[in-house]
């Protein structure tokens, strides 16, 4: 892995990310008041994915670190998602 001069995350960036996360939390909570039927799960999970991407990218420094760590997190998420999808294929088509 490449060595690089260590990046310092500015307090301003940290604060902006926190603000975004809080706003997204507010959105996902208020959305529950609308009846989205089958889409409710999808929307909630989508917001959760956006929030977690923010945490991973900024708080956990992935944006500024060796790209291989980003590649790894993708692979891990892919493998995990496949577990759920393949298992669901069993239950959906029973």
């Amino acid at each position, binding site marked *: *892995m490449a060595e690089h001069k260590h990046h310092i995350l500015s307090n301003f960036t940290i604060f902006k990310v926190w603000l975004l996360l*809080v706003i997204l939390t507010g959105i996902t909570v208020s959305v529950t008041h609308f009846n989205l039927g089958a889409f409710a799960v999808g929307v*909630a999970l989508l917001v959760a994915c956006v929030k977690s991407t923010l945490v991973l990218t900024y708080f956990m420094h992935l944006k500024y670190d060796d790209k291989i760590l980003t590649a*790894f997190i993708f692979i891990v998420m892919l493998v995990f998602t496949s577990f759920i999808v393949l298992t669901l294929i069993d239950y959906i088509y029973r």
Partner: protein
Amino acid sequence: MENTTEHFEHRDDAASKLGMWLFLYTELLLFGGLFLVYSIYRFRNAEAFAECGHHLDLMVGTINTIVLLTSSMTVAMSITALQHGKKKQAIRLLIATIVCALIFMVNKYFEWHHKFEMGTYPGSPTFKSLPHGDGLFYLLYFFMTGLHAIHVIVGSIILIFVIVYIKQDKIRPDKFALHENGGLYWHLVDLIWIFLFPLFYLIH
């Protein structure tokens, strides 16, 4: 002189960070197994799960979510402070993080206590007579939030160690891998809650 050559001090911060990330992947998969069970039983008991979600306190859940997000902010800021050489501020921010953890745990305690009073917990005398979907919902609720709470406690202990090491100068602006890795663990705790929250409190 000792006949030994066993201790070679080699410091490799990139290796430490990689090691920590690899450990985080295992934690993700550990919770992942539970998320898998959740998705299957939710699929099979959609109405029961949605209905039970109503019985959780949305206000407390939302507050806890904000509290954890804030704790992620404070721990990230503590690293920035440390890197700028501001030891005292770094420690104050870490204490703030731990305070957030305490608030989270207190809220969790009240939530769980309420459920215990209602008898909707695994091992209660009335649990087995709950409708199937309800039983599975509450089992998963306690198992997943319980396992998460354990990680909150472990994470807090790790951060206490970080504070001690900063005071002892074992963590310094030129040597802060332990601090970063402790922070990474803490963010994982936040990440898991980011998914637990909607799945239990919001989907109805």
